[in-house]
């Protein structure tokens, strides 16, 4: 998108969105950005171990989708899950403490980055096996329908998972049984280090449900307002028709697949180019055009940084799980 087009779009949007909404989206995206930056830092310091998959660059996806949901809707995703938890309203302290493997973490330090849950906030993980969350999300949608809750389950997965067999088994059943599940394909162009063109026979993931009669749409995931608009439509479709829908969101991750990613599969130039059109920049431009000034934006950023620093301090200062935790939570007695 060139500068001119962007301006045109911005002016169109300005009239449609109120400033409060833009600020709210900004705050959520910024919280994810700052949280992830801090997580990366803590990983580098050895405070976070194992696998840690950052969401930087993809913030507009989950923030845009979430802005279209109701409180009782549920969400399930893969292992790149920190952003999803934060927008669901999970406490950054508890998430960060889980990353550092502390008893105060959402999973008492037993799950780590990839495995966190909050029934209270409607977040059902955090799943470490590529594609496994897809039938689970359809199962949650099944439970909503069974109990006549009018809720939907938003099920996120990536372009990599989109080639897993269980995804298609789930598409079939979700369509066959009319389950209120919204499949979000976060296409960030790389499944770990393998580009879409090297892994997938076609690069259009949205239409992969067509064989099962599932309606779909593709949207630019670098623009949170575009994502939001598409999400409102998709969510309404799922809820009112009690049917599945596939929304492919084209996005990009600015950081590596995990912390140990050498990044040899894409060029620095490519990453730099994508960063120029980052989702936060686009949104903040709109906010500034709406009469907000740089200082006011900076103030919001500082507040968020403070919140994230508090979460990091909490995560580092919290205790490791007691050794007695080792054998707890295996079976419900």
């Amino acid at each position, binding site marked *: 998108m060139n500068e001119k087009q962007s301006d045109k779009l911005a002016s169109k949007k300005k009239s449609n969105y109120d400033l409060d909404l833009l600020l709210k989206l900004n705050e959520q995206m910024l919280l994810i950005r700052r949280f992830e930056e801090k997580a990366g830092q803590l990983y580098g310091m050895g405070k976070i171990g194992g696998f840690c998959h950052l969401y930087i660059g993809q913030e507009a996806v989950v923030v845009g989708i979430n802005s279209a949901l109701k409180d009782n809707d549920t969400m399930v995703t893969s292992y790149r899950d920190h952003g999803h938890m934060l927008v669901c309203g999970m406490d950054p302290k508890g998430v960060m403490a889980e990353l550092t493997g502390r008893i105060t973490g959402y999973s008492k330090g037993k799950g780590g980055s990839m*495995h966190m849950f909050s029934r209270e906030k409607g977040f059902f*993980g955090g799943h470490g096996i590529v594609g496994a969350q897809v039938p689970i999300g359809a199962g949650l949608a099944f439970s909503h329908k069974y109990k006549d809750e009018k809720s939907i389950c938003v099920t996120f997965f990536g372009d990599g998972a989109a080639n897993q067999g269980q995804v298609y088994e789930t598409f079939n059943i979700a369509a066959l049984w009319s389950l209120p599940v919204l499949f979000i394909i976060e296409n960030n162009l790389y499944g770990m280090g393998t580009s879409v063109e090297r892994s997938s026979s076609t690069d259009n993931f949205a239409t992969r449900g067509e064989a099962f009669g599932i309606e779909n749409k593709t949207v630019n995931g670098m623009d949170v307002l575009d994502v939001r608009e598409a999400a409102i439509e998709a969510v309404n479709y799922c809820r009112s028709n009690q049917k599945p829908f596939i929304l492919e969101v084209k996005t990009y991750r600015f950081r590596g697949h995990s912390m140990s990613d050498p990044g040899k599969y894409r060029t620095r130039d490519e990453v730099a180019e994508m960063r120029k059109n980052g989702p936060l920049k686009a949104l903040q431009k709109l906010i500034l055009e709406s009469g907000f000034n740089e200082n006011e934006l900076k103030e919001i950023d500082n507040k968020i940084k403070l919140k994230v620093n508090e979460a990091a301090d909490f995560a580092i200062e919290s205790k490791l799980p007691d050794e007695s935790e080792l054998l707890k939570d295996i079976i419900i007695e």
Partner: protein
Amino acid sequence: MPALSPTMEEGTLAKWLVKVGDKISSGDLIAEIETDKATMEIEAIEEGFISKLIVEEGTQGIKINTPIAEFSDSEKFSEINNDERNKNVINISNKGVTEEVKSTAIETSDKDLTSSNIDATKKITVREALRDAILEEMDADNNVFIMGEEVAEYEGAYKVTQGLLEKFGDKRVIDTPITEHGFTGIGVGAAFGNLKPIVEFMTFNFSMQAIDQIINSAAKTLYMSGGQMGCPIVFRGPNGAASRVAAQHSQCFASWYSHVPGLKVVSPWSSEDAKGLLKSAIRDPNPIVFLENEVMYGQSFDCPISNEFTLPIGKAKVEKNGSDVTIVAFSIMVGKALEAANELEKNGINVEVINLRTLRPLDLETIINSVKKTNRLITCEEGFGYSGIGAEISSLIQENAFDWLDAPVLRVHGKDVPMPYAENLEKLALPQTSDIINKAKQICS
């Protein structure tokens, strides 16, 4: 009597649909036969007149290949001599049979059982006991539902779910496509969503398609969530060898699933086990792997009829007291162990037989107490010996009751080969009663 399933050995002639003198054509329904799985209508494949109904309506236990009726080319059948009769013994096809649910129609659900007759029993098949367990628990809790291949309209590939669709409707008795990985994951998600799914695998061999969801999602999520994400789900279906269905349909997965923390693994033998344990499994807040056995489905045992009846998961049952050697077994091997015990009695060897019932958590205490009495232990399982249940028990006993042993623990198990199809080879591959007898003689010598 035609063989109408791989495991059918005998049948009941439920009803004649023709009478003597009737003209029959190919494709006409002539009788209803209760097999080990279902009541099925059988068809004639030749034309003629019914000259004699050899077997009376209601006769049970008719071995396969037993003549059940005769037909004649002419109406003057009375003149037919015996030789001709033998030639014209009715030939019935099992092709295109229609299946009906009559013999095992639901009876127990509406009974108003009081606590005073909680001990009352009735002879029912393992199949009926399983169905009663599901039915009673679905009656008691609206969040319980059953899903799987052919569980609804077909009424179960092995007829375990007979009558359930009719009673509960298609919201709660749900046919799935043949996609184990997908529907198992959906079941797990539904359990996370506070429902109580019963997922039927047509056989546990097919659960291999879905094992990731069973292990990585169902079993581990409670722990990974710090206790938040319980997964109250039952995975059930026939496990182990059936009869003549070869390697891909004849494996015991008891040791596979028992290996995994976060799962409970239950394996019933009798009707009482089937009903009591399945009801407990459905009520349990944890993921349960419930390993049934196709060969056992048609066998009958006395079973408590009360819908209050349950059996505790994690407790074994001493099926027979004895003093010379302890034999532990589960599922179909319990019957073989009891047979062996009866034979061994004649040789002066007094056997204690333990029906494990649950494989995880294992009732080690009952085994140890028995070993303290008999000082000898034999384990029995149908599955492969290597890394098997017997290997685990043997290890646990040497760790916990070594000083009580007078002889090394011996194992009876399936041969270390994929299951062969040929009848003679299959028999060689499976552990037989004679193997148990031989091991018992060895350990007591």
